[in-house]
């Protein structure tokens, strides 16, 4: 069976109007416009198997959302190929559109002044969901997300977290096989984030649907995705497990030494990069290969009461990585 999502050498560049500062330049812009090409996606390759839950990580402007827009057929690519369930997304065939959903954390699809229930009934019609299937799915989803009581309340009166849950229900009512989530937990508090994570994990495991998620919250990614794709500068920089990121991109480990002496030696920086000192405790970043030698040296030269060696925090590694690419 071919991969459910198959992306090959996909590129997308936007033509943007260069606007200069100042009134005179704005007036000049009326007559003579300068355009420049912005390459949002520079050649992405990606194969996703059915039932995978894949995270898209990357700094703002890395091309994550553009890729999701391409895969959901909102925009046409500049070059390259992609198929989702065998369909080319930007042909926008109804057969395709009935079988995927896109949820954007910053946009809403529900009717603002009406209860969510009304939007759901409309979705039922638009997607042609059989009535018994609709009722069963809606009951299941509202119970899982604990929003049964909110169904009759106008969407504008809901909190952001409640609204996001309602958006998710709207996206899942037609039982899509592929789900694209663009920052579904943006702006939510810790509890709401957690609820949505749990729901997504449960639902994905149960239905075995294929999900592509972008998020800036490492917790979302750690909780949900076994596979992580890092996109930066419009290219895939990494494709593998979350833990693998550290192995691949961080050559250092963090060593914490607890000294048994009162005075701080002045030559500690020969051991590695000093991160912080809270005497008698010192944290040092040391290249992985150097650790046995440096530790032996430290134990030989100083009185040391305790040692711990850890991987650097994932957030830091990723932040460094984003920084390098930028």
């Amino acid at each position, binding site marked *: 069976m071919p991969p459910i999502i198959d992306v090959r050498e996909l590129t997308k560049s936007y033509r943007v109007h260069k606007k200069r500062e100042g009134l005179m330049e704005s007036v000049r812009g009326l007559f003579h416009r300068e355009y420049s090409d912005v390459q949002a996606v520079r050649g992405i390759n990606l194969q996703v198997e059915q039932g995978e839950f894949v995270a898209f990580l990357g700094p703002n402007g890395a091309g994550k959302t553009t890729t999701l827009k391409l895969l959901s057929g909102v925009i046409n690519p500049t070059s390259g190929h992609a198929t989702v369930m065998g369909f080319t997304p930007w042909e926008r065939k109804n057969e395709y*559109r009935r079988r995927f959903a896109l949820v954007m954390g910053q946009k809403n699809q529900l009717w603002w002044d*009406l209860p969510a229930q009304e939007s759901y*009934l*409309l979705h039922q*019609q638009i997607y042609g*969901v059989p009535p018994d299937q609709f009722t069963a799915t809606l009951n299941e989803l509202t119970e899982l997300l604990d929003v049964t009581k909110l169904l009759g309340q106008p969407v504008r009166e809901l909190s952001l977290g409640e609204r996001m849950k309602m958006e998710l229900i709207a996206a899942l009512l037609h*039982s*899509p*096989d592929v789900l694209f989530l663009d920052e579904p937990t943006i702006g939510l508090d810790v509890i709401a984030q957690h609820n949505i994570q749990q729901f997504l994990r449960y639902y994905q495991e149960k239905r075995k649907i294929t999900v592509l998620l972008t998020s800036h919250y490492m917790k979302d990614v750690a909780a949900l995705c076994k596979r992580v794709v890092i996109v930066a500068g419009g290219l895939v920089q990494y494709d593998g497990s979350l833990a693998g990121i550290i192995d691949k991109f961080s050559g250092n480990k963090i060593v914490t030494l607890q000294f048994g002496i009162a005075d701080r030696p002045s030559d500690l920086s020969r051991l590695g990069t000093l991160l912080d000192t809270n005497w008698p405790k010192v944290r040092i970043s040391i290249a992985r290969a150097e650790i046995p030698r440096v530790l032996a040296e430290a134990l030989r030269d100083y009185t040391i009461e305790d040692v711990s060696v850890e991987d650097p925090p994932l957030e830091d590694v990723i932040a460094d990585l984003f920084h390098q690419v930028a």
Partner: protein
Amino acid sequence: MQLASEESASKHGVYTSGTHLPNTLPRRLMTWWMVMRIALEERLAYRGDFALGTLMRFLPIITQIFLWGAVFSSLGDDSATGKKLGGYNFPDMVAYFLLTMIARAFSSMPGLAGGIASQIRQGEIKRYLIQPVDLVGFLLLSRLAHKLAYYFVATVPFAFVFFLCRGYFADGFPPAHLFVAFVGSLVMGFLLGFFLEATIGMIGFWFLEVSSLLFIFMLFSFFLSGHMFPLTLLPEGVLTVVNFLPFKYLAYFPAAIFLGKIPDDELPMELAIEAVWVAFFIIACRVMYSRGVKRYSGYGG
């Protein structure tokens, strides 16, 4: 239960988990009904605004009665047999305005073009690309629902105003064939108004901000539709040009039919020309939409 498409089910069915009903006519009708229902509920969410918007439409007629009363009395005669302006005496003139009010109730599309343009600008148009729905059909059904709600509420006040002003209709009710033509011109007026404004809204795909353009269109439509005065008041040369434009079908034409101002031998041709205009704007709107979407999706979002 049948799958959406047998062909695609066998080709891509390996992934399918949810089933979809086939897109039969009864199901289509059901979808249309649901779109209208939602649009109606949304319109009625703000009851006060709806009620006020409905009733305020009657105010201008009072101004018009006073204005044309003054004009005709300065001419020295405001009786039914008196002087005529562009073929209209004073009672005709008042009857004309009452009838353009009905015509406008069909053909005016407040917020349609601006709404489309703002949906394009704000990216809300995406949902029509992602979901299996057609933007134009969706908007048409919503507008139809709004109009029906409006007629439902406005029928009583309309009937009341017409009853009060019955004296101005010197010839009484028109013969049956004129009345049929009148109704036909109202229905086509609705379609023309809708597709004309929707076409303008689609310009938003090329120029994100269309409010100035829309203002110019409104201005032209205001004068050239006969909303301000019967078009026969225009100088000969101007009238010839205006007769070639679609605007007159939005207000002047239905009123003129009702008052018997369109000669019987010209009426079928006029109605046919109106139908051609409707067809033209349906096509224009469709073409602009499909090109616009291509541009939008090729450009960004």
